[in-house]
């Protein structure tokens, strides 16, 4: 009886704008859709993985109460946008060891409805005086966007990467968003459009930055044995690992290399494959530079050659390595932590349910989450078949 981990259900809540849902309702709706997709019920769930943003600090325990769960396995590790990728290694170990039978992953947020669109350029609000590590950033006017801009400038200075290269990433993702009826922005983009959009923090333009949206996602992992008699063909979790290098941007050791080097090497080792075997990538694209760094650090091209690689069109629809086939966070949906959505989209592709966005002969997908400020990188490799 195989206890190898498989993903058997996926669900998304309403996005990109859903003023009728709060964060808990996003989780409930995505969970219901994932359960219905799989043929399981809430009573089957005995494990739960959920991370709470600082904006919803008790979301994980509130969700457990809201759904009436009694998880015998629980993981609430928070690493920002890569939280799901950091929870998966422990989840698949728990499945294999029999510490859980069926684990629900869920995330949801009413980010856009609650905060509006200016998150990336606003300072974090501080009650009373500023203290802790942000003392060394905030008095200088640092924002989320500036942190990524610092990495982009460094990459350009070291390797000759150009704004056009970064823009190409946004253009390719937008093409997929055009095929997703729910995506926030669907009008086709050109490189010139990106470069003509307002500069936020050099070298990042407005269209180098992700959207701010509402949204939630859920997926369900169980054993291969249990997955056999459910509604969907199961998707195998072949490799999963996470690695970190810092938390605040001021402590990033090398601004043009992320911990994705370590997380991907371990995930490839587990899966017994290499980057050349991957058919599609679902990458955290909080900013265009995020995707470029992940691309290099996951070995799809050499360090410093990401710009040229992107320019060759590999990430586009019909390319050798289509990226963010749902429109990503650059054009479709970003509600705070997108790691869960990277998995749901990879599963959709591996099932062959991608519709107009379907990657042909999609057998292996790689999802890479990025949490904090390029700080915590998690890599998950999923396969249509067991290897």
């Amino acid at each position: 009886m195989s206890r190898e981990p498989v993903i058997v259900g996926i669900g998304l809540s309403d996005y990109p704008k859903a003023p009728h849902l709060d964060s808990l309702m996003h989780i409930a709706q995505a969970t219901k859709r994932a359960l219905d997709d799989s043929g399981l019920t809430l009573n089957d769930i005995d494990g739960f993985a959920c991370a709470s943003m600082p904006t919803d600090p008790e979301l994980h325990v509130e969700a457990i109460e809201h759904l009436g769960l009694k998880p015998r396995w629980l993981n609430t590790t928070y690493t920002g946008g890569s939280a799901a990728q950091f929870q998966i290694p422990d989840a698949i170990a728990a499945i294999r060891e029999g510490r859980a039978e069926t684990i629900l992953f869920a995330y949801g947020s009413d980010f856009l409805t609650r905060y509006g669109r200016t998150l990336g350029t606003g300072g974090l609000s501080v009650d009373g005086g500023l203290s802790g590590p942000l003392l060394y950033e905030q008095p200088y006017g640092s924002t989320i966007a500036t942190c990524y801009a610092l990495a982009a400038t460094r990459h350009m200075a070291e390797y000759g990467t150009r704004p056009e290269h970064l823009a190409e990433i946004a253009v390719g993702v937008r093409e997929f968003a055009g095929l997703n009826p729910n995506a926030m922005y669907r009008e086709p983009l050109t490189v010139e459009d990106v470069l003509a959009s307002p500069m936020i923090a050099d070298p990042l333009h407005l269209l180098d930055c992700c959207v701010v949206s509402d949204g939630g996602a859920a997926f369900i992992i169980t054993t291969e044995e249990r997955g056999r008699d459910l509604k969907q063909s199961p998707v195998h979790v072949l490799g999963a690992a996470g690695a970190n290098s810092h938390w605040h941007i001021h402590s990033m050791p090398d601004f043009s290399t992320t911990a994705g080097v370590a997380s991907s090497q371990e995930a490839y080792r587990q899966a017994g494959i290499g980057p050349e075997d991957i058919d599609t990538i679902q990458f955290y694209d909080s900013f265009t530079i995020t995707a470029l760094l992940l691309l290099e650090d996951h070995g799809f091209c050499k360090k410093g050659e990401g710009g040229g690689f992107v320019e060759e069109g590999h990430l586009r629809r019909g390319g050798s390595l289509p990226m963010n086939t749902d429109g990503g966070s650059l054009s479709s949906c970003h509600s705070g932590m997108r790691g869960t959505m990277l998995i749901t989209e990879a599963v959709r592709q591996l099932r062959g349910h991608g519709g107009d966005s379907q990657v042909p002969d999609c057998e292996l997908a790689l999802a890479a989450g990025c949490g904090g400020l390029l700080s915590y990188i998690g890599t998950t490799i999923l396969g249509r078949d067991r290897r």
Partner: protein
Amino acid sequence: MEVIDNRPWDRGPLDPGPIDREYFEAAAQGRLIIQKCEDCGNTQFPPKALCVSCGQVPDWIEASGKGKIYTFTVVRRHGVEPFSSLAPFVLAMIDIPEGARFMGNITGIDPETTQVGQNVEAYALRIDETLALPLWRSTQST
């Protein structure tokens, strides 16, 4: 480093804890300090309770205040004052030869011609009687 006393502090209240306070107090006395571990020689910034290399309690050393731009951005949009009025301004990471990296603003420089690798030096803006915030200015003739 020079401490500028006559500019009103408008970057919000700071309430540093015990270790952080030593850094901002030194800045108010015109000294840029970083931590150095006597046991293993590791230098580190921002300050921490322990040496991240060996776990011992680190000491402080004074840096020369000279540095180079490791990377930078020109902030064009900011949602919070005083930064929205200051924009466009340069936000950079500065490497110092003593072995530490700082975030800071660089003043006295044209944002449009700022380059990675440019030489800068530290100065400080007074916050109150006991604390000051280090900033950086260009030492390159343009």
